[in-house]
């Protein structure tokens, strides 16, 4: 699942971050251009407010820029790092600003419907992307919804239980079963390639 990009600028994500850490504005710009669509797309997928999504996306990219010196490649891919910053900021916005979240089903469908691989994803195997979609599609609708509520909306099992009007045990089971099945399917897909 780890990805290293050697996209249009010819530099890997890690190289760009290294440049940013040393104050190279061109590296920062290249980094922003590489990720602004994905970061904005994530935020806009989570909140139904374009202006708020832009605010979040900008803040996420600014934080990535400012914290480039402390990025640790051993702890995850750059894309995961940046998108996680955006996700956490969006969750904060949903909680603090009482922003209106996207309907979880819409969000699920957004991900399932998208089979696009952007030009900047050139280094990302399209096989991997398709495998990921297949893995997500293999989950039951309830499992997908539970995972989305947990991961993208930051809801605890108790909150999911309340929101979905299901017993707490059922919520926990959906979360665990969904995540382990996602992992197992992805592992299986990976071993077949």
């Amino acid at each position: 699942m780890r990805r290293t990009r050697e996209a249009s600028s010819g530099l890997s994500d890690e190289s760009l971050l290294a440049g940013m850490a040393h104050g190279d504005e061109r590296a920062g710009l290249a980094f922003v251009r590489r990720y602004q669509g994905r970061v904005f797309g994530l935020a806009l997928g989570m909140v139904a407010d374009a202006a708020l999504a832009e605010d979040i996306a900008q803040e996420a990219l600014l934080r990535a820029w400012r914290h480039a010196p402390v990025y640790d490649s051993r702890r995850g891919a750059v894309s995961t790092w940046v998108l996680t910053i955006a996700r956490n900021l969006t969750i904060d916005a949903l909680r603090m600003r009482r922003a209106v979240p996207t309907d979880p089903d819409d969000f699920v469908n957004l991900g399932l419907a998208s089979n696009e691989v952007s030009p900047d994803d050139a280094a990302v195997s399209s096989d991997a992307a398709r495998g990921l979609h297949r893995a997500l599609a293999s989950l039951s609708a309830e499992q997908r919804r539970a995972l989305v509520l947990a991961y993208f909306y930051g809801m605890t099992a108790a909150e999911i239980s309340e929101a979905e009007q299901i017993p707490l045990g059922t919520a926990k089971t959906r979360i665990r079963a969904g995540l382990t099945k996602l992992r197992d399917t992805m592992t299986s897909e990976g071993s077949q390639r």
Partner: protein
Amino acid sequence: MSGDDLRSGPECGRYAEEIAELALGISTGRQRARALAHVEACPRCHAEMEQLSLAADSLLEVVPGIEPPLGFEVRLMERLGPGRAPRHSVHRRWIAWRSSLALASVAMLVALGAGVGAGWLVRGGPQPSRSSFGTAPGGRAETASLMAAGRSIGNVTVYSGRSTWLFMSLDDGSWSGEASCEVRLAGGRTILLGTFWLDNGYGAWGVTLAPGTGRVRTASVLSGGSVLASADFAPGTTAYVSGAAARVDLPGHQAPARGSSCQPVSSSSTVSGSSRRTPASIASTTSRGNWSSSCSSS
């Protein structure tokens, strides 16, 4: 490793659900502390959590990218600016103003033709920057705050150089819908320059003024015949200094007769190198829109 492996040990099985919730980042309180303590001590569960975390993070990859609104990069760069000022500080007005200047530079380039279409210029061309504005030869820029009910909700910049143009940006307020821009000149004449759209108070718009239009004293944003916001260019307002003389919201202000048309603009005789343009060479945008050549004045 699979879920079956995890359940193979009684101690590990007790934490199966907790580990999944840890991986998703939704575990809380004592539950989280207990699970973490176990994961730290158990290599099997530690590996399990790492794998589940990777699976969870892979969800980020299925969300499709969406091109952000026009000016996103400019606004981001300004937020990053030299002062590293936090958002919503006093510095923000400066940032917003600099952003408007940067966008204004695009408006100027659009107005000048530059040999390419406006869409290309904005989307794929050189990014607007401070320097592109600052090096405009022989130009003079005056900026004033757009005031509404005693507070600034945006800026208006009038640039006078080889051509004269006006650019305004609004980033606060609550109006959505069509708004119009009206200027009052130093000689007292009032001109309705055109219309544009506001989206929750957010929008940017520019227009090239006809040669010899004269000095702009007041620029106002109107909707439904009322002045939503107004900017005064007091004498002595200079380039790169925010004018900011307030003229507060004037409900009931009588809008001028709509007979005044968009100013004829930038024909080949007035703008060097440009091709003949539509009645008014207007570049307009909202937070979600693209620059376009449109003028809906009467």
